């Protein structure tokens, strides 16, 4: 469960995030839409503890992000826009490394199962990351999130630069994760993808969450229209 109450972040005179109040329940996928600089990434950074909020609170799984920066990270997983990972390590090794940092020690079979769940077979898992496409790297990122048994997942532009097939695979994966009770917050530019996976869609402008819509209540065209009118 991801929650924010009056979350605000100011850089001098500029307000990057303005009074955000938000709850994302387990199993819910919340998509943030908005132009560059609308505050999407700042929102994620506040939840991750990378940025100290100027005021307001953020909780992950009921714990305050500022109070407990280490424990909250036990419950969350994060997938940055560019997931290059370690090029000289194989997929399995990257997965194992991050899992162990998160405090999990898995057998090889279990690691393979996570890869399998993320849509990668054993053969690919043994290859070095330097040979992976972006879509495959994203899947390793998802596998890392799954292996961590995260309760909250943060995604920053995960589908940019993916081909339609990879993007579609990714959406499916995300929905399955949500089904298992993960709360997902995803910042994106991709209106079509957002409408497809999101339970709810929020549109941001100048640091404010301007409107929230049910994902299945709108068509992609309607959503685009609202978006263009908002920003």
């Amino acid at each position: 469960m991801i929650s924010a109450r009056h979350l605000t972040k100011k850089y001098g005179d500029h307000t990057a995030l303005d009074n955000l109040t938000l709850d994302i329940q387990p199993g819910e996928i919340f998509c943030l839409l908005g132009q560059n600089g609308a505050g999407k990434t700042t929102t994620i950074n506040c939840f991750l503890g990378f940025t100290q909020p100027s005021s307001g609170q953020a909780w992950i799984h009921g714990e305050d992000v500022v109070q407990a920066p280490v424990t909250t990270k036990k419950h969350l997983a994060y997938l940055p826009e560019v997931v290059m990972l370690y090029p000289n390590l194989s997929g399995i090794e990257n997965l194992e490394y991050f899992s162990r940092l998160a405090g999990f020690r898995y057998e090889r079979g279990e690691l393979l199962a996570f890869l399998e769940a993320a849509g990668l077979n054993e053969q690919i898992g043994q290859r070095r990351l330097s040979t992976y496409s972006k879509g495959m790297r994203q899947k390793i990122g998802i596998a890392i999130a799954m292996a961590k048994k995260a309760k909250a997942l943060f995604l920053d532009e995960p589908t940019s630069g993916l081909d339609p097939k990879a993007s579609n695979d990714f959406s499916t994966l995300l929905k399955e994760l949500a089904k298992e009770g993960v709360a997902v917050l995803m910042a994106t530019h991709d209106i079509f993808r957002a409408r497809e996976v999101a339970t709810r869609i929020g549109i941001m402008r100048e640091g404010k969450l301007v409107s929230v819509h049910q994902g299945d209540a709108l068509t992609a065209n309607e959503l685009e229209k609202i978006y263009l009118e908002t920003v």
Partner: protein
Amino acid sequence: MFLLQLQYEWKHLSRNGAAWLLLLFLGGAMVFGAYNGRQRAARQKQAVQALKTAQDEKFAALEAEADSIVKGLKKMEQWWLDPTNPLTVGLLRKGGGTLVIEPAPGQALAVGMSDLQPEAYAMLFGGGAARGSSDYDNPARLALGAFDLAFVIVYLLPLFVIALTYNLLSAEREQGTLTLLLSQPVQGRRIFVSKMLARFVVLSLMATLLFVPSAIWAGIGAGLTAQATGATLLYGFFWFLMALAVNMLQQNSAFNALACIGAWLLLVVVMPALVNMLAEKVHPVPSRAGYENALRTADIEFEKMKPAILDTFYDANPALERKPDDAKSPRDWWLEELYLLDIRKAHVADIKALYEDKSQSHADFARKLTVLSPALVLHDYLTGLAGTNRDAQLATQEVLESKAQTWLDWFAAKYAADAKLQAADYAAIRSMLEPVQPKQSEGSSNGLLWSVIYLTLMALPLILGRRRQMMAAI
């Protein structure tokens, strides 16, 4: 945590082709440096052996001849060829003893000044004369400097460390793994510290595994090797910290590479040249061109003082008759000369001191400036360790001169007593010709002190910049 990082750092490096290439390169340089050390040592051993053999043969022949003369089997008319005459055997041109200087044990580690150090010191009437193969070495090679292990460590090791560290953090950022790391439920500091430590442990292991066998093969000996390894690791650690500090500047990898190379260029290549220039400016050393002239001028003065000095000689030795110059026998003449020797030495001591003092203050100043660069601190330490620096050379020179004095006094006493050299005397002569062990200079703790200061300085940005680093990661 540390073990996990160690395991993964090893994976990263062992799968990095460039790292292996660098390792191969550094290893090749070390082996070549060690090979050069071996060659030098072998050549010097040979030269020393040749000097010893020649000397042994000479004294064996003299002793045999002296024996025949003592036993009355042979007659020798010319006193200047007489092997029972102490003056002939000990001090004159065809005679004289040669003190052979054993090579410094650590010279394969750091050649320092040892390539200019003579292999022997001839003790003659006119004073000591250096006998060194360096007289015949190609000066162009001497000028280019030695490719020894010290060169590999001081100049090339930092490049190895830099090449494998310059992007330690910037690559994490560029790969996007930094944010992923920071979103793990471990304190960022713990990850970084253990990651850095692990990287350094792997690097140290590689450097040690290359250096220790090379040093042993070069024939440096376990004790010296251990000390040199310690110094090498400290030096490597400095460069490691330097590279990390550059990483803290939050720039991209290309910037880091340029900055690290710039630091290396400044500290390792430019600073020594700059220090030498400064030392030359602040404490210029006069050309020795004037030296021999000054000695000759002093000699001319001395000639004028001679009659008065000889007055004291004959006063002190009433048994000796003072004759006019054309009535003097060679013995009369040499007895006077032997007496004058020490006084002449004292007379020219000021001139020697003048040049030596200038040279010493130049060297002292240059040494003070070594603190400007850890490369110079290490070079200073290694040459000291190897016993091939100026101090060691001067200490050895002191031993040689005191031995030469003993030698002179012994023969002068024998000659004054008009003794004939016999078998027992020859045994005594041999014992005075024992090879001289090179002197080690006093180990300075300066090197250690400055390493600590340098390391602390380099570690400061790590300690202070930690928080900012993590925040700026995103």
